[in-house]
């Protein structure tokens, strides 16, 4: 196959564009990984390829006082948030998509509207609420606030999905004697599973990476989540920012997410498109 000059230009242009996009989106992560393996003063030299390899930063982080504890906190908080949000969202979206009641669309719009408020706007109110509930400086403070912020998105997506499920299937189940709870757990949940994985994973990522609430609602070091712990990592003196350990910690907490996404990748794609066209 011979290509004309113009076709060559198009081909090269296309791949050049691909390379630019990949470099721009990957570079920050690449640089974090690169930095995490450097040691000592090598960190302050700028180079774009590995020049030396040391796991010292990782050892420093893992043996640090409360880092493991922070990871456990994050796993617990994100996990509970996902479970709670999915439970509430599935039941709520069943009602919103299937039960006829007055003010249903108003409610849906309100739910969507709530998700548009910036976090900082509700921070003070939420703080009062958490103090009132007596869960300040406990994981439940984060679980509550993350669930509040995740739910609108989760409910909205699941409602869209549930609306697309054929109503006859639900009616067949009603005639078979299914209660609403049976319908949700035995008929809808298995069918919604791609959507559940998608929204669950996004909720997990959101909770895992959240910083502002986690910083505000915790005081003691043992209650911190990973993003806060990383941000507050301190070096030998106040003047030193420990870039090496910070980068190592970032890599450690990002890898599980990447693995999760890779595992569920196919489901996510299926989930994101499944509502679009009839299958």
């Amino acid at each position, binding site marked *: 196959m011979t290509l004309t000059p113009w076709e060559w230009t198009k081909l090269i242009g296309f791949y050049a564009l691909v390379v630019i996009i990949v470099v721009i989106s990957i570079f920050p992560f690449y640089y974090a990984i690169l930095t995490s393996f450097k040691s000592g003063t090598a960190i302050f030299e700028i180079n774009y390829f590995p020049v030396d390899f040391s796991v010292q930063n990782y050892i420093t982080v893992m043996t640090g006082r409360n880092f493991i504890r922070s990871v456990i906190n994050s796993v617990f908080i994100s996990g509970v948030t996902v479970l709670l949000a999915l439970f509430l969202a599935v039941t709520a979206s069943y009602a919103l998509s299937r039960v006829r009641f007055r003010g249903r669309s108003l409610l849906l719009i309100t739910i969507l509207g709530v998700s548009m408020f910036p976090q900082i706007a509700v921070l003070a109110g939420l703080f009062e609420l958490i103090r009132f509930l007596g869960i300040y400086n406990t994981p439940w403070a984060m679980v509550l606030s993350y669930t509040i912020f995740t739910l609108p998105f989760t409910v909205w997506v699941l409602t869209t999905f549930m609306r697309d499920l*054929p109503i*006859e*299937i639900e*009616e*067949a*189940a*009603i*005639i*078979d*004697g*299914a209660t609403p709870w*049976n319908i949700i757990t*035995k*008929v809808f949940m*298995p*069918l919604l599973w791609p959507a559940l994985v998608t929204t669950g994973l996004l909720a997990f990522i959101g909770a895992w990476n959240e910083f502002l609430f986690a910083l505000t609602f915790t005081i003691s070091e043992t209650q911190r989540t990973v993003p806060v712990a990383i941000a507050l990592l301190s070096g030998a003196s106040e003047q030193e920012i420990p870039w090496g350990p910070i980068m190592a910690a970032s890599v450690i907490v990002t890898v599980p997410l990447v693995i999760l996404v890779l595992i569920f990748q196919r489901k996510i794609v299926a989930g994101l498109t499944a509502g679009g066209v009839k299958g």
Partner: protein
Amino acid sequence: MAEIILKNVTKSFGQIEVIKGVDLLIKKGEFMVFVGPSGCGKSTMLRLISGLEGITTGEMTFDGEVVNNVIPSKRGIAMVFQSYALYPHMNVYNNMAFGMKLAKSGTDDIKQRVEAAAKLLQIEHLLDRLPKQLSGGQRQRVAIGRAIVRDPRVFLFDEPLSNLDAALRVATRLEIAKLHHNMGDVTMIYVTHDQVEAMTLADRICVLRDGYVEQVGTPSELYEKPDSIFVAGFIGSPKMNFLEGEFADAFDCTTLGIRSEHIDFCDENPVWEGEVVHTEDVGSDNYIFVEIGSNEPLIVRSPGRKGSEYGRKVGLKPQDQHLHRFNHEGHPIR
């Protein structure tokens, strides 16, 4: 097994009244077909009987027991949906067993009932498959099987054949007719917009129009003695010929109806004369379209499958005993 009585039943969705006062008796073990044009309320009627929709006013009884507020699963009904409505994530066995599992029946009992139903419908070899691995006809059988397993008093069919192709439709129609004979004492209610399905399956047909019952009767009653122009025009294929104006005046009525097989060709003293504008050969019969100056060409069944060339002048004469005369309200003059 159940006698269903509807007394002055109405159904409204918000401001819109869909069923406008229906009185109907469905006998035990009867095959009743609801038929009518789209939007006439026939599917709504079925859903009222199933309990998926509640009735707005009136009373409905199953074997004398008022069921207005009884939930669907307690009415002893089973329903076959147009779109099959199988549970996509369950195999055929579990689809059929779902209702019994919810009712907490014993495993052996479930197995026995499901296998018996599968045998009846010849789908035993499909029990492990998922719905997406089945053809349309097989899915419909599974849907019917799921209904049989429930061992219902009343079987409800909501246009079960409209998603099937023509050949399969006829075959499945036969299956349903056989099923009715085998399950002799089960009342069956069947909704369709296809009058051929209605004529071939029904013990009695209920013709609905705009939320009212137009006429209830056996297929031959409806065909031979329609109570209104609407029923006369709806039942039978090709459609009954209707003549108005001076054609009707000659017979002392507002509208004169005559079916295509009740018109004879005759060259001496014809009642109507016209020109052949079209012929339709459907295999078993030839239908000749004759323009006699009325609103629409007159459709005449040609005896012995004889065709007729375009533009030929013919004389026609209706068979007097088969004339349907209607007054200005659309009711028959008898």
